[in-house]
């Protein structure tokens, strides 16, 4: 190999867009069906190579029937698990809300606290940095009052702007799930009143 090594360029490997593994390993990822669809759409020739001959190679493989059965069962279990996790996450997302709260810090001085973003898979630290840059104010990730989780605290009253920004940049958060709260029990914006 050493003599041919010089001539060999770097190999380019395609990775699955769904499970990030090389497509040949998709069957072990638990999202096989989705991976297959993705490959079909993005790399049709690879798809035909992998999925058409697969049945044949499987039959040829020297695994005992017993082991194959076990493997299949395992794969099914894994797939079911992955699916369940997905459904659960989806439900959690639908149920969870983002609260944008304006808190009076001093007379006529406010801070805005944003909580609930982590349920949508966002990185609080990064978002806090973004807010700081966008509004040119201090913005940090802090523990919330109960000590149960983290929230982003932005200096100044920027609740409306945050609302707009979230709509623009993170469309995965439904509008109805964002809630604006003012400390003086006065509601602002198109949000529904908070349950009290």
């Amino acid at each position: 190999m050493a003599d041919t090594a010089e001539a060999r360029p770097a190999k380019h490997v395609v990775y699955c867009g769904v499970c990030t593994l090389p497509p040949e390993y998709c069957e072990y990822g638990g999202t096989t069906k989705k991976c297959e669809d993705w490959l079909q759409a993005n790399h049709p020739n690879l798809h035909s190579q992998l999925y058409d001959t697969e049945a044949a190679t499987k039959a040829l493989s020297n695994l005992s029937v017993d082991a194959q059965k076990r493997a299949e069962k395992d794969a099914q279990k894994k797939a079911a698990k992955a699916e369940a996790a997905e459904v659960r996450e989806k439900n959690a997302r639908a149920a969870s809300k983002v609260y944008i709260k304006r808190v009076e810090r001093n007379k006529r001085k406010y801070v805005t606290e944003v909580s609930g973003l982590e349920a949508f898979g966002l990185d609080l630290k990064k978002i806090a940095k973004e807010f700081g840059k966008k509004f040119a104010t201090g913005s940090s990730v802090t523990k919330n009052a109960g000590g149960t989780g983290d929230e982003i605290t932005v200096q100044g009253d920027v609740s409306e702007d945050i609302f707009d920004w979230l709509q623009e940049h993170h469309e995965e958060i439904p509008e109805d799930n964002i809630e604006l709260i003012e400390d003086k029990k006065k509601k602002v914006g198109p949000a529904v009143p908070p349950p009290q």
Partner: protein
Amino acid sequence: MFKKEFSPGAKSKVKSSVQRGIRQKAIETYPKLEPYIDEIMPKKEQLDLVKIPDRVSLYVLNATPLFYQHMDDPLIPHLSLVHKYPHCFHRLRIDRGAIRFVLSGATLMVPGLTSPGGRLPDPTISPDDEKGNDGYGGTELNTGEVVVVEAEGKENACLVGVLKMSTKEMKEKKKGVGMEGGHYVGDGLWKLDLS
């Protein structure tokens, strides 16, 4: 080692002198990588060091991970690098039945390598021979060597790590632990988001 997903720790720039050292070490450990080292680690580029849990440091170039290292252990290539230059590393092969265990983070057991579907280096076949033993020729490997593990019927490697048993011993015993705590496709290190 990276079974759980984790988030990267502090990222810092590597001093150019240290960078030279890493480069040197990489060539030393993987001599076959030498023709490509300029491609992998251009001299002028700034390398980054990302700290990840368990005292592992990961060397990153422009958001592509290259090598990881636990304390002062040998540099171990990230699998994306292995996939690009598979012929530059010592290779073994496991049988089909072992793949699913490896990909869920189990330790690599020797029977997966010694069974008909697996391949261990065969000293009677020259490493340049692509046909004999399916291209898995070469000398016996010792404990502590970094090897890439490929899988029967698959093109790309699925695991990389340090051998816990020499290949000679494996052939004699045919059981026991072959490798522990390696880096496999789909583990935390693989899924690490560096952007």
